[in-house]
C-alpha cells in the first residue's frame, strides 16, 4: 500500500522536475522532506517498480521515428510465451504484450515497431516473423494521433 507521503511524492514528480540547480531540494521543500531523503525515496520507488524509469519522455515523432506500426500476431497459444520472448529481444521492438483474442480479433501478441519509414517497419516485421516462425500477422499503422497525454495519478 502506498502511504500518503508516497502519493504526495508521485503528484510532485508527475508535474515535472524543476529546471533549477537543485531540483530535488525545491521539491523536498514542498513535501516537507530533506533533499537526501527525497532522493532516497525516489530510488526506492524505482527499486519497487513504482517508477519504471526516471528521466525524459520524448516525442519520438519529432526525432525522425515517424512510422510507427502496431504489429499484431496470431500465435498458437502454446507458443505465445516463447514467441513473446523472442520478439522482445529485437531492438526495433519497443513494446511487446500478450493480449486476449476477441470476437473478430484473432491476434494475441502485440509488438510496437518504430522506424523512419513504413518500409523499414515492414522489413523489421518480416525479420520478427522469420525469427519466431509466425506467419499470420498484420501491420496497423497509425494515421492520426487523436490524443496523447500523461496520466495523472492520485488527483
Amino acid at each position, binding site marked *: 500500500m502506498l502511504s500518503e507521503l508516497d502519493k504526495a511524492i*508521485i503528484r510532485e514528480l508527475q508535474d515535472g*522536475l524543476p529546471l533549477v540547480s537543485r*531540483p530535488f531540494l525545491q521539491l523536498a521543500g514542498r513535501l516537507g522532506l530533506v533533499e537526501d531523503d527525497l532522493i532516497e525515496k525516489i530510488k526506492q520507488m524505482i527499486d*519497487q517498480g513504482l517508477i519504471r524509469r*526516471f*528521466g525524459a519522455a520524448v516525442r519520438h515523432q519529432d526525432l525522425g521515428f515517424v512510422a510507427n506500426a502496431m504489429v499484431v500476431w496470431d500465435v498458437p497459444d502454446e507458443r505465445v510465451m516463447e514467441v513473446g520472448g523472442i520478439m522482445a529481444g529485437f531492438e526495433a521492438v519497443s513494446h511487446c504484450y500478450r493480449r486476449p483474442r476477441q470476437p473478430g480479433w484473432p491476434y494475441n501478441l502485440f509488438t510496437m515497431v518504430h522506424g523512419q519509414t513504413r518500409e523499414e517497419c515492414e522489413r523489421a516485421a518480416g525479420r520478427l516473423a522469420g525469427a519466431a516462425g509466425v506467419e499470420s500477422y498484420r501491420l496497423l499503422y497509425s494515421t492520426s494521433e*487523436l490524443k496523447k497525454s*500523461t496520466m495523472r495519478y492520485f488527483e
Partner: protein
Amino acid sequence: MLDNTDRRLLNLIQADFPLTPEPYRLLAESLGLSEEEVLDRIGRMCEEGVIRRLGGIFDSRQMGYSGTLCAMRVEPERIGEVAGVVNAFPGVTHNYLREHDYNMWFTVIAESRARLDEILNAVRARTGLEVITLPAENVFKIRVNFDLE
C-alpha cells in the same frame, strides 16, 4: 532543430538521469558544457515539445491502477464525435486512428477495475458502439527510450 549536443543530452537524460542533488551540473560535466547551458537546452526542448516531460515514468499497475487497450469500429463520419466522447475521460491517455476495420485504438487507465468498467460502459452508451478490450496478460517488453545517435 536538434544539434548533436541536444541528441547526446537527450540520450543521457532518457536513460540515466542522475539522482543526485545537482543533476544538471553532473550532466554538464559529462558533456563538457556549463550547467546553465544544460538547463537552457532542456528548457528549450521542453518548450518545443521534443521532451514531453521530465520526471518519473510510473507503472500504473504497480500503483494499483487498472488499464487496458481498447478498439472500436467507427464510421469515418463519426470519428470526431466518438473521439470527443472517448478523449473526454482523463484516464484515456492515448488514442490513435489505425488502418483496420477496428480503426480507433485507445488506452485507458483508472484507479480501480470498477471505475475502468464504468468508463467503458459510458463510452458504449454514449456512442452506441461496441468497444473491445485487450488488456495486457503478459508484458514481454516496455522500452521508452530511443537511441538518437
